């Protein structure tokens, strides 16, 4: 077996035998699982409660009706998205959601309700949906009207109501869907509508603007209707006026096809790969660094160099390091793909659209090239640090600037690519070899001119060649110099070691 390969296998096995390797390998999956679990366990449940006390007896039901209609419109929108995604064509009076997501009118919501509402829609879905489609899950209600909690005084005016309600505004209250935060208390006096009479509202300190606005619009609508009626407008005309809505045709693009969404989806996988490249190179690089420093401080390099050339040692270490990094990335990707397949909808909603962006063989090949080239280029930087460092303390002095030099521009590249992949920053970075892998990988999903891919790739390859020559020199000059503080430049000048 070739000596280079033997060194690579030894490096690979040594790193894989360390606890830190396994901890790092499991870190990402564990972090993902923990974040999902904690999000489910500790995230507040959706929806807030509202208490409306209406002394007039006229406005409370109107507000509740409005909240119910808004909820139906929200359900209709989700049903439309679901129908479009799974190509379901419902039939019947209330099947307005079959045309896909849109801005549903209150009239359409009433028709939907009249036709049986969500229960009827679920029945149709169960009959029409493909076997692979998940069940439709309606969105959680945003606002939940409830009766006044026990102990709240509702018959002694607004002050008594407000005072007795205050304790409930600081905690969860009982609702039909479980404990929820009480977000708003509304007191409508019996003589509301008379000049100077106001509706009183109490919030929990974080006013829910949408909820307050919903209540205000409903009350304003009732006041306007009353005013029109007083002005002599007959009931039929009034009802007709009330149904007037500005005609709006809202076209909602299919999921994932909006400009921003498209950018996110197309850049997601390449960006994820770029992130993985950065993380794995940092970790495997530091292991390799430790190994090399250990070899230098253990004085065992002389034994090794009596058997093989410094170049064989260098290439072996490089191959071992790249192999460790690729193993980590493969494991992480395998976990991510398994997780995607185990979570309903992720493959259809995210993975497939994201893969479309790199489905071209040329783009896939370029992605693989930039990934591997980036790995080799960065690995050599870590090896150079290891070759000139006698201890981890020494290495820290070189590592900090190196890590900052890589990570800070990377963050800028990633955020720029999500805004505009053809923006000046990603384009400029694509031509700078140490950032080219990140910039090009992040941009590839969104389409990059061929001349840029080829030109940047050639420059990167040339840089790697140059780096290899430099590293080879540093390696030869420094390996047996343990304990002597030699500057990088003096090491480059040295050509003593074979």
């Amino acid at each position, binding site marked *: 077996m070739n000596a280079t390969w033997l060194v690579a296998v030894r490096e690979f096995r040594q790193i894989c035998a360390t606890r830190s390797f396994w901890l790092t390998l499991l870190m990402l999956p564990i972090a993902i699982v923990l974040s999902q679990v904690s999000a489910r366990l500790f995230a507040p449940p959706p929806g807030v409660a509202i208490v409306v006390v209406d002394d007039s007896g006229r406005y409370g039901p109107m507000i509740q009706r409005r909240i119910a209609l808004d909820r139906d419109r929200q359900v209709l929108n989700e049903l439309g998205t679901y129908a479009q995604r799974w190509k379901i064509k419902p039939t019947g009076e209330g099947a307005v959601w079959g045309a896909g997501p849109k801005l549903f009118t209150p009239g359409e919501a009433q028709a939907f309700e009249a036709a049986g509402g969500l229960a009827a829609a679920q029945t149709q879905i169960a009959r029409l949906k493909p076997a692979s489609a998940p069940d439709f899950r309606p969105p959680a209600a945003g606002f939940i009207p409830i009766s006044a909690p026990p102990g709240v005084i509702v018959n002694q005016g607004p002050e008594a109501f407000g005072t007795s309600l205050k304790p409930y505004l600081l905690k969860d209250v009982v609702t039909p869907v479980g404990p929820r935060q009480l977000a708003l208390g509304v007191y409508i006096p019996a003589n509301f509508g008379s000049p100077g009479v106001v509706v009183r509202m109490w919030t929990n300190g974080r006013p829910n603007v949408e909820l307050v606005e919903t209540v205000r619009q409903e009350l304003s609508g009732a006041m306007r209707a009353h005013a029109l009626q007083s002005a002599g407008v007959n009931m039929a005309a009034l009802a007709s006026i009330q149904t007037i809505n500005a005609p709006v045709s809202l076209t909602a693009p299919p999921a994932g096809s909006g400009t921003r969404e498209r950018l996110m989806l197309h850049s997601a996988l390449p960006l994820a790969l770029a992130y993985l490249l950065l993380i794995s190179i940092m970790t495997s690089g530091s292991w390799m660094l430790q190994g090399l420093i250990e070899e230098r401080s253990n004085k*065992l390099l002389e034994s090794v160099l009596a058997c093989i050339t410094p170049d064989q040692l260098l290439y072996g270490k490089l191959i071992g390091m790249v192999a460790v990094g690729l193993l980590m990335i493969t494991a992480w990707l395998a976990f991510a793909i398994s997780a995607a397949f185990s979570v309903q909808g992720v493959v259809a909603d995210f993975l497939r659209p994201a893969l479309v962006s790199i489905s071209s063989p040329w783009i896939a090949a370029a992605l693989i090239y930039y990934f591997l080239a980036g790995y080799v280029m960065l690995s050599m930087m870590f090896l150079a640090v290891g070759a000139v460092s006698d201890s981890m303390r020494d290495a820290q002095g070189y590592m900090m600037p190196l890590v900052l030099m890589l990570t800070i521009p990377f963050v800028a590249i990633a955020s720029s690519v999500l805004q505009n992949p053809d923006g000046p920053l990603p384009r400029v970075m694509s031509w700078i070899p140490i950032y080219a892998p990140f910039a090009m990988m992040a941009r590839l999903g969104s389409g990059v001119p061929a001349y840029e891919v080829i030109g940047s790739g050639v420059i990167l390859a040339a840089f790697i060649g140059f780096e290899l020559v430099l590293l080879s020199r540093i390696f030869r000059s420094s390996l047996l110099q343990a304990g002597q503080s030699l500057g990088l430049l003096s090491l480059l000048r040295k050509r003593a070691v074979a």
Partner: protein
Amino acid sequence: MRGAAQEAVLAGEAQLSVLVLNGVTKRFDGFTAVDNLSFDVPENGIFGFLGANGAGKTTTLRMVLDILRPTSGTIQVLGQPAGRRGGGEIGFLPEERGLYRQMTVLETVVYFGRLKGMAANAATTSAENLIERFGLAPFARRKVEQLSKGMAQKVQLAAALVTAPRLLILDEPFAGLDPVNQSVLEDVVLERAKAGSTVVFSTHVMQHAERLCDRLLLIARGRKVFQGSQQDARAQLPARLSLTARDNPARLPGVEHAEPTGCADEGWTDWKIVLSPGVEAGSVLEACTRDGFALRRFETHRASLHDVFLHLAGGQPVGDASEVQS
């Protein structure tokens, strides 16, 4: 200027040289570590490479192993320019020893065998034999970090021997070993030499060289000050005698200096005598017998390599000492 190998051939020595250095110089940033060094090591036997700390021994051995390249001069190892082509035929135990701490004893020895080009099976068999030979069999599957220093040094020696090399180079092999392990190592060196290997070992401890070496090379400040057999080396120093006589031995032929060291009984005196260069103790004894010079005690003192070392390298400027060559 004739090279050492050429000189050997001209002198009629048909023995093959496994190692030939011709005018080898190595400079580091203006410092000359090895200065125009020429010597050859004949095949078979044990060759001592002697010198004080910093004399240039390790640098020379590194050049022989192609770890360092000479600034000038040529090196031939086993008939070829220095390089790693015949890696398996050369075993090397460096002065600064270290092993991969996480590897087991067996893995370590096999690894070095394979780095030198051995097949996996052959390396494993050879490693197992050496581990057994060095009494490390119970620790074969243990990690190196769990071994004592002495055991780790045996592992390193096994790694140097795993290919059964024709040329075994040991750089300060006895450093750090306890007397028991020094004895084991001496046995191994003798065993390898008997098996046909050529052993070159560097040391600054003359007792080891005295016990083991057939031929010696002594360097000081990077330059050769002596090459030859132990007998040749000792001949570099005037012979010394101790005797007890009634008369002053200074008048005897060949005596350069006589110093009384004490009075024995009945008019006898103890003397310490230094002979003139080239004069042997036997000729002095012969003169005493012939001239009726009364003696009660006559002892010859063989010069030790330590004395020779001090004489050639320790007490004189290198320029003077370098003139003394066999």
